[in-house]
């Protein structure tokens, strides 16, 4: 179901939220946490945030920028944008099937 997110294990969902947060521009760690809380209501803790960030960085989906004082902003890479688009497409398909099977009209 998760495609390239499969091997992220418990960091798959936080990674999706982080990539979504970075899609509109670079952010440092705390800005990502507050942004994610704003748009999804998910309260991400620092351990999870950096566990996911380190994995995203190793996969080349996010790139660290130059540190500003103690804060290091991260930006999404082209590969990260591609994997995010792929994941969103998968989720849209899940929503489509769920709507069909439950007969519910969501968010229309």
């Amino acid at each position: 179901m998760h495609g390239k997110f499969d091997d992220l294990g418990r960091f798959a969902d936080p990674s999706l939220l982080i990539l979504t947060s970075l899609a509109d521009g670079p952010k440092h760690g705390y800005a990502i946490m507050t942004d994610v809380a704003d748009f999804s209501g998910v309260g991400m803790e620092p351990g999870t945030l950096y566990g996911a960030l380190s994995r995203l960085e190793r996969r080349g989906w996010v790139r660290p920028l130059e540190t500003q004082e103690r804060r290091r902003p991260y930006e999404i890479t082209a590969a990260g944008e591609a994997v995010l688009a792929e994941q969103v497409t998968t989720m849209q398909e899940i929503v489509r099937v769920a709507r069909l099977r439950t007969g519910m009209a969501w968010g229309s």
Partner: protein
Amino acid sequence: MADWLSRHLVAWHPPRWRERYREEMLDVLDQHQVSAWTVLDLAGSALSAHADPAYRMAGFSMARLRRAVAGPAMILATLVLVLGTLVAFAAYQERWHLSGEGGVGEVAFAPGRGLLVSAVGIAHQDSMDTVWDVTDPARPRQLSAFQGGEPTVLSPDGRTLATVSFGGQPVLWSITDPRRPARIAVLPTKDGSALWGEAFSPSGGILAVAYTDRIYLWDVASPTRPRLLRTPEMPVTNPPPYAPQEFAFSPDGRMLAILTGTDQVTLWNVADPARAARLATLTGPRDALQAIAFSPGGNLLAGVTYHGIVLVFSLADPARPVLTTTISDIMPDALWPDGLLQHPDAPPCPSCGPADYAVGFTPDGRSLTVLVERQESSVSGDAAITNDSRDTVFTWNVTGSGAVTGFSTAFRDVVGDLPALAPDGRTVVDGAPHSNAVYLWTLP
């Protein structure tokens, strides 16, 4: 304890991980409200990083194995201890909060976000702040509670809360996530004088902090790094008890109105805080002003005095303010705590204190609202307890030049304490005197 433990858990990550992420993670912890979940999450992160081949140390030795086992064992033992303490503290905090001794003291609004923060407690610095979702005023939801102190004022974007906290210092809290308020900065108090109020500029970039003798301006454009601005001394004399309206920024943020004497308001030009300059002094009748408010256009300033005299000044030329309206006959129409109007000879009870006031305009600037609350109080220990109170709300139509026409009153009948007007000028907020309950009233 949780804060201390979370920082140690960062240090328990593998060396290569620490080299890369330690500083930025500690920076995040500085801004984050650490909880038991944070500690558990960091413990999981440390264990996961130790198991991660990218960060696991190369080679193997018994000493390393012992260290590897000792770390998690210590984490586990400490976690059990800390979690027990946190659960006990949370239980105590919840019980303390629900008892709500002293009643709701102050409220702050973030209308753009549908949030309201109320503070409850006897001593200001010990106050418990509660964040409410009032998007649907008929069904307010409690989002979080924390021991933050009072008074409480919210930045215009509703993301930063200023309180006076332990030790009497102003403290900034982030409520970007209103379910998880986080302390982000403490503003040091230089001369140890008592703080009596705070106000954000309309842009949210400046926080005015009033002490008993003068006002300081802080640059809080970056709330985690507040900077004290060098300004000329802006004195305050005889400050009345705290109320948000007793000093106020104009809607464009270029002026600051401060009660500088019992019957005077001084207008300061703070367009450039470093060159703050006194513009004018507004003087009304010889009666102590209690509350002031700018009109939304900034062209009027309204005030109400100790004896209920309502004043409107025109600020068409801020350097030459003109007193355009004086209304001195509202108090006979203000209910006494027993709900009666006429007491020709004497107040209805010996323990009736002076009235509390709030003043405000509707967002269109066409209505002026003055709220009068008369209370009957008694003293229990060191605290004044409100036994009964009645609010009377007066509204007038007001023109752009400061002329006042029409008149209406709306009465209500509730035991409340410390009334406040919401920024819409049509919602009255009142706190129950013996609990953390907050009442919202929409004016007819």
